[in-house]
């Protein structure tokens, strides 16, 4: 379910070798990436991988130790106000004043971002309709359910119509129905903006994002389009069963096969290179050699396995 993104090629966020320490630990280590208009970039990683720290630095809440952040052409350190005007930020905890009503909260946020009174009210009406908040304007934010609080948080980030949205775990703590709604909203928002969202849920990335970045201990271990990650998934292995198996060496000699595992009982797992299709050659060889093939199953590594492989640095995900 990919978003039909409008690729204008306009770079909205450029991050160069961003680093940040927390005491002794290197929370973010020389991370570089770019975000373009129309992209929804999913930040994926285990808890403590440095996702939130990176996002806090992008939002200007936390100062980086080293590196450069350009938001819509403005350097976050040199022109902080111009850069921040271009960002809508939803922290892990939606920053809501418990004793304020939804309308007061949104109005304050709009005014903080430089909208005058009339513009604030126009923006509020629009954003409330978009985020499904039309009926809760007079409720205190402290009394809202988690789902509504999250929506107010997103609404708050949208008020000044920023080209860049930074959403830190936007669906955390929501029930599945609410999470679906929020994902649909994010996909819609991502069409004319650049969105960065963080999550530790793979299905969420699959459902929402066009691009993925996987972080592990402060480093980027994978960055690319979602399709590339899917590709890794296809470049997995074949599972075969033979009644008269040849020596393992012979199987390993087959074209594009990189490694052979003997599973016992005449079953083997053949690892092959990415994008290769060795089944045809295998069939021919099995016929010629009289191996008596009784099983041929392409095995796909699940996204989960790829994720674990990337984050834990395992050689194989078994």
């Amino acid at each position, binding site marked *: 379910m990919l978003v039909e993104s409008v690729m204008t090629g306009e770079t909205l966020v450029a991050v160069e070798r961003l680093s*940040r320490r927390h005491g002794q630990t290197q929370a973010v280590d020389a991370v570089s990436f770019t975000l373009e208009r129309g992209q929804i970039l999913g930040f994926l990683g285990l808890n403590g991988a440095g996702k939130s*720290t990176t996002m806090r630095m992008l939002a*200007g809440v936390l100062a980086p130790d080293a590196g450069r952040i350009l938001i819509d052409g403005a350097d976050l350190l040199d022109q902080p106000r111009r850069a921040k*005007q271009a960002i809508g*930020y939803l922290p892990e905890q939606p920053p809501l*004043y418990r*004793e304020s009503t939804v309308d007061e909260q949104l109005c*304050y946020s709009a005014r*903080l971002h*430089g909208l005058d009174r009339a513009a604030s009210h126009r923006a509020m009406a629009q954003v409330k309709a978009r985020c499904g908040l039309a009926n809760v304007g007079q409720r205190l934010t402290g009394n809202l359910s988690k789902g509504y609080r999250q929506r107010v948080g997103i609404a708050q980030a949208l008020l000044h119509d920023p080209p860049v949205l930074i959403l830190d775990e936007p669906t955390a703590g929501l029930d599945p129905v609410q999470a679906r709604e929020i994902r649909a909203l994010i996909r819609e928002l991502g069409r004319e903006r650049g969105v960065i969202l963080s999550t530790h849920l793979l299905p969420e990335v699959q459902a929402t994002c066009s691009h993925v970045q996987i972080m592990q201990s402060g480093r980027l271990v994978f960055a690319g389009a979602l399709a590339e990650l899917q590709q890794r998934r296809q470049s997995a292995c074949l599972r075969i069963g033979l009644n008269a198996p040849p020596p393992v060496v012979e199987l390993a000699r087959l074209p594009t096969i990189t490694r052979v595992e003997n599973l016992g009982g005449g079953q083997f797992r053949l690892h092959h290179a990415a994008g290769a299709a060795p089944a045809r050659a295998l069939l021919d060889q099995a016929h010629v050699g009289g191996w008596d093939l009784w099983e041929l199953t392409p095995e796909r590594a699940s996204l989960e396995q790829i994720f674990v492989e990337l984050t834990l640095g395992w050689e194989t995900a078994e």
Partner: protein
Amino acid sequence: MIRVIAARELRGLFLSPLAWTLLAVTEALLAWIFLILVNDFQNARGRLAALEHAPGVTDLVVAPLFRVAAWALLLLAPLLTMRLFSEEQRTGTLDLLLSAPVRASQIVLGKYLGVLTFLLSAVALMALMPLTLMAGATLDGGKLLAGLLGLSLLAASCAAAGLYLSSLTAQPIVAATATFGLLLAFWIVDVGAGRGTASELFGYLSLPRHNDALLLGLVRSEDVAYYLLFSVAFLGLTIRRLDNLRLRG
């Protein structure tokens, strides 16, 4: 931008039961003291009439009342300023301010002006009581205004100190305690000071001492400058602290 932040802060104070309770309690205590002072003045009227340059009602009622009001500010300020930044740090709403296109100085000044407006309205309430005396006596307007100026400057100083200490901790009650301790230290710093240059320094540092001349109707630039410097110093420290929060994380 400063106005937007100040307005929210002021609104928040007027919505909180704490602020109203504080206003009610201080007003009640001051009313009690006011009545005692008026009563004393009534009783002493016969003796005062015999004196040549007898002190008037402004000296005998208004000045002592304002002296007590200064103590009331010492109690009010920490409790009103404790939540300014500590609550925002605790609940994470500070992120909204830090990620908004606003300067640290605008955030600090906004919050400061918000709480100061509230404190000044408390001072105005305190001033209403002596004003009722005008029904039956003539007040020395100059002395009254000087006294009010003193209280306002004192309020500005206390609010600035409270604002700074509230930015240092995420626990409002810790901020309140620290502010009260700091202000009390500045209050009694001249106690026990004898003579000599060191004592003069301690005397100069004392917060209420600069109010003494103002209560007598004497507006000296030295005293006004002291309070302004005190406030500006703490506001500067708060701005620095806010920038530091970004570095520290």
